[in-house]
């Protein structure tokens, strides 16, 4: 996810910058000491996520949110404990971090944000459509279940499991059983985010909780890793 930091305090920016650098999901594009500079930047650039300080002189974080059109996802950062309720007024706010921010809490907020964000760099047009699972864009795709086309948002997909003539698409909201093959769906999913780690499993890399020797934990599912797929998995994690 591409991100920027908006915070009038230099010390906060140094800390957030370091956390962004060490978080594999994040690509820190720029940082700003005030909201006005950030607004100018956002008029020219598309960003997935903003770390936004609420309490800034002249133009607060909430003023900022109300000013920009179609705000990206936002993680608020503040020294005030009492503003969390205000934060729920805005759909774009995915989390609320109270300073001093600890690394674990920061990463938890990033994980939360990644569930809502389709990384802007990764969006690619898709040409072919498989029979039962089609992918008109990287943000969403349709599956044919009992003659009904059901839309699934790609970032919500945790993993896909092949069983016989069916694939089971497990999302953060619901699981779907689709008459299709893993090969067809793999060809259509964004390569940057998904990886086949076993002949029967494709996973969303951003959903990984932890990796042990021969298995990956995604939510409550333990997914086996083929020995042949392990080097590719490790390489992809380095890239993220």
């Amino acid at each position, binding site marked *: 996810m591409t991100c920027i930091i908006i915070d*009038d*305090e*230099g*010390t*906060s920016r*140094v*800390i957030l910058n*370091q956390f962004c650098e060490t978080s594999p999901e994040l690509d820190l594009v720029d940082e700003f000491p005030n909201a006005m500079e950030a607004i100018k930047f956002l008029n020219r650039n598309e960003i997935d996520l903003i770390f936004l300080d609420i*309490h800034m*002189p002249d133009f607060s974080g909430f003023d900022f949110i109300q000013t920009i059109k179609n705000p990206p996802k936002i993680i608020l950062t503040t*020294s005030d404990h009492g503003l969390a309720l205000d934060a729920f007024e805005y759909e774009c706010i995915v989390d609320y971090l109270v*300073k*001093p*921010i*600890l*690394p674990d809490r920061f990463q938890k907020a990033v994980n939360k944000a990644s569930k809502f964000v389709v990384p802007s760099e990764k969006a690619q047009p898709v040409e072919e459509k498989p029979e039962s699972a089609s992918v008109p864009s990287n943000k969403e795709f349709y599956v044919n279940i009992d003659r009904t086309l059901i839309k699934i948002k790609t970032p919500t997909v945790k993993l896909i499991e092949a069983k016989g003539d069916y694939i089971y698409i497990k999302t953060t909201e619901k699981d779907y059983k689709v008459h299709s093959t893993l090969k067809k769906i793999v060809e259509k999913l964004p390569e940057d985010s998904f990886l086949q780690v076993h002949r029967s499993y494709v996973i969303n890399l951003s959903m990984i909780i932890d990796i042990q020797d021969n298995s990956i934990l995604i939510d409550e599912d333990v997914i086996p890793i083929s020995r042949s797929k392990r080097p590719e998995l490790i390489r992809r994690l380095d890239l993220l």
Partner: protein
Amino acid sequence: MSQGDREFEKKILSVASQELKEEVKDFNIAIAQVDYHQAAQLVHKIKHKISLLGMEKSYEIAQAFEEQLNNGSESLLSDFRVILEKMITFLQESE
């Protein structure tokens, strides 16, 4: 917070020290001009550094002082100045 990363610690302390010097200067001007709104903004920024240094009691005083300033009073000023002196000394020694 730094998870044992000494370089990161040094960087935080260095930036905090430089920034605090400027903030204290601006704070003194704001108080001299009885600009409590500006003084409260600066106390708010300094508050984060107080919490970074783990000065819990001082944080509570700063919190109360910020509220006081927003209500047009400065009776905790001398307590806050003591906190500033402690911070400056600590940060200078860390550099």
